[in-house]
C-alpha cells in the first residue's frame, strides 16, 4: 500500500520542540503562522519580530528570519524593516503586557501611520513570562500576582480592548478578534492570520489580529479549564469577531 502524507511539520517551523507550558496556545499559534508562511510560499521573504515575554523565544521555533525587539517596541522595529524592504512580509508577534502597556505608543502610532504590516496580538490577560502580574487587559476582579484581591477598577482602571481602541484609526484596514480554544476557533484564527498576511502582500495595509489565549500556569487552571475560561469569561468581555475590514 502506498503511503500518503496527510500532514507534516511545516518547513517554516523549526525542529526544536516547543518549550511553552503544557496546554499554552502560543505553540498552536506559532504553528499556524508557520503553516501560513508555507502555504503562501513566503518563507524566504518573511521577517518576524519577537516580543519580550513568553514569546521572546518564538525565533527558536520559526525557520525564517526573526529579530528580537525591546519590550513593547516590536511594531516600530517592524516598521523600519518593512520601510527598507517593502517587498518582504513583516509581522510582529506580541503579548498584552508588551503591546497594551509598555508598547502602547508604538502600536498606536504604527497603526495610525498605516504601516503595511501585520501585528499578531496574543491576549491572555496577564504577564505570563514574569509570573502572572496584572496586565492592561486583566479583567475586572481577576486575581493576579499584583492584584491579589482581584483587579480593582477604581485604582487599576478597566481592561483595555485593544482591537476596539485601534478601530477608529484611519490607517488600520483589518482587525479581527479570534481565539484558539478548539478546532473550529483554531481554523478561524488561521483564516484571520492568513488574511492579514495576504492584506500585506496585496498592499491593503495595516492588519491587527487579536488572539484570545490561555495561560494555564498563571491562571492556575488545567488546559481544559483555561480554555473554558477563555470561551466563557474572556470572550464575554472581548467579543470574538471581525471588527474592521476595509479592502
Amino acid at each position, binding site marked *: 500500500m502506498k503511503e500518503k502524507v496527510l500532514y507534516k511539520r511545516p518547513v517554516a517551523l523549526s525542529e526544536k520542540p516547543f518549550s511553552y507550558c503544557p496546554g499554552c496556545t502560543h505553540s498552536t499559534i506559532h504553528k499556524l503562522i508557520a503553516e501560513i508562511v508555507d502555504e503562501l510560499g513566503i518563507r524566504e521573504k518573511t521577517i518576524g519580530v519577537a516580543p519580550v515575554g513568553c514569546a521572546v523565544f518564538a525565533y527558536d521555533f520559526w525557520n525564517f528570519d526573526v529579530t528580537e525587539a525591546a519590550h513593547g*517596541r516590536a511594531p516600530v522595529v517592524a516598521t523600519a524593516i518593512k520601510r527598507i524592504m517593502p517587498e518582504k512580509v513583516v509581522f510582529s508577534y506580541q503579548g498584552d503586557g508588551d503591546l497594551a502597556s509598555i508598547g502602547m505608543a508604538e502600536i498606536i502610532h504604527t497603526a495610525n501611520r498605516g504601516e503595511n504590516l501585520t501585528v499578531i496580538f496574543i491576549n491572555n490577560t496577564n504577564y505570563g513570562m514574569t509570573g502572572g502580574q496584572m496586565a492592561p487587559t486583566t479583567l475586572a476582579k481577576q486575581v493576579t500576582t499584583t492584584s491579589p484581591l482581584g483587579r480593582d477598577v477604581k485604582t487599576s482602571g478597566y481592561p483595555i480592548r485593544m482591537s476596539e481602541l485601534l478601530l477608529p484609526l484611519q490607517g488600520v484596514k483589518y482587525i479581527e478578534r479570534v481565539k484558539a480554544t478548539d478546532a473550529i476557533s483554531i481554523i478561524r484564527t488561521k483564516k484571520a492570520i492568513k488574511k492579514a498576511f495576504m492584506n500585506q502582500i496585496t498592499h491593503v495595509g495595516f492588519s491587527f489580529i487579536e488572539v484570545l489565549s490561555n495561560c494555564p500556569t498563571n491562571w492556575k487552571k488545567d488546559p481544559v479549564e483555561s480554555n473554558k475560561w477563555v470561551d466563557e469569561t474572556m470572550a464575554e468581555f472581548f467579543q470574538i469577531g471581525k471588527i474592521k475590514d476595509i479592502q
Partner: protein
Amino acid sequence: MNGNGTVFIKGNHAIVEAALDAGCRFYAGYPITPQNEIPEYMSKRMPEEKGVFIQAESELISINMVFGAATTGARAMTTSSSPGMSLMQEGISYMAGAELPGVLVNVMRGGPGLGNISPSQSDYYQAVKPGHGDFHMITLAPSNLQEMYDYTFDAFDLADKYRNPVMILTDGLLGQMMESMDMKHDRKPLYPDAKKEWALTGAVGRKGQRIVSLLMDPGVLEAHNIKLGKKWKTMIENERKYELFNVNEETQYLIVAFGSMARISKGAMKLMKDLKIGLFRPITVWPYPYEELKKAAAGVKKVFVFEMNQGQMLDDVKIGLEGSKPVEFFGRAGGGVPMPEELCDFINKNK
C-alpha cells in the same frame, strides 16, 4: 547638495550631508532643540537619495526604528539632544547587545531635567558610560564643522567595522553655527560592499537566522560578554583620536578640552602668547586617549581642564595622568558658554 568644494553651512546640516554621503538610507528622529534642523533638512534630503525618513513619535521610537533598520543591514541614524538621548539609552544597549551598527548624534543642551536649550557638554558621562549592561561605544567629539562632517561620515564606517553603535557628541553651539567647510561628496565609505551576512534579508536558500540580545542558557551571556570585551579592547587599541596643539618641549601648561570648549581654549591661547600653553584635545572621548594625554603632559607644570559642565571629563584626565600632575578645573554649567578671557583669568589666577 551638489558637488565638492567649500561650502558655508550650518552644523546640523553638515551632519545630514555627511550621513547621506556615507550611504545612510534610514533616518528616524523626533523634534528637540537644538537639533531640529537635522530632521527638518533630512525630511527633504533623504527622499532625494531614495532613503527612508520617518518622524518618530518619541526618541524611544526613533532608536528602536534604527534598531529595526540596522537588522536589515542598512546604514541608519538618529539624532537628538540631551533629554531625548536619555530615552534612547534603552535602544543603544539593545543594539550593542545584538551587535547592530548605527549612528547617533547628540547635540547637547543644558540639563539636568528639561534644563535649557543652550550649548552644553552636560552629557559627557551619558555618552562615555552609556546604558545598562556591560558595553561601550565609540564616541567622537568634533570641534568644528569640518569635523562634524568628517566624523559623522567616519562614524558609519566605524559602526559597520565593529557592529556597534557609534555616537557623535556635539552641542548646540556647533549644531547651530555656520562655518565654511569642504564637502567631499565623492568620498567612498571604507566598507561599501561589506557583506552583512548576519542581516535579516529573508532566509533565501538558508535556514532562518535571528538577531537577539537575550542569551538565557547558562554561560552563554558570559561568553558573549567576553567576546564583546575583546571588541572593546580592539577599539581601545585602534581608534583613539586626539589633537595636540602647541604642545612641545617648552610647553609649561596644558589645557585639556573637547568639542566647543577646545575652540574657546584655542581663543584663550591666542590671548596669552606670553605663556607657553599647549592644548590636548581628545577627539574620541571613548576610547579616551589616556596614554597620549599622559605623554603630552609629561613636561608641563600644571594641567587645566575646561568643560561646559561641572567636571565630567575631569575624571578621565585624572585617570590618564595617574596623579602625575596637578590639575585645575574650570567649568561653566547650565548652558553657560565662557568667553576666552574667562579662561585666561582662570589660568592667570591658578597657574
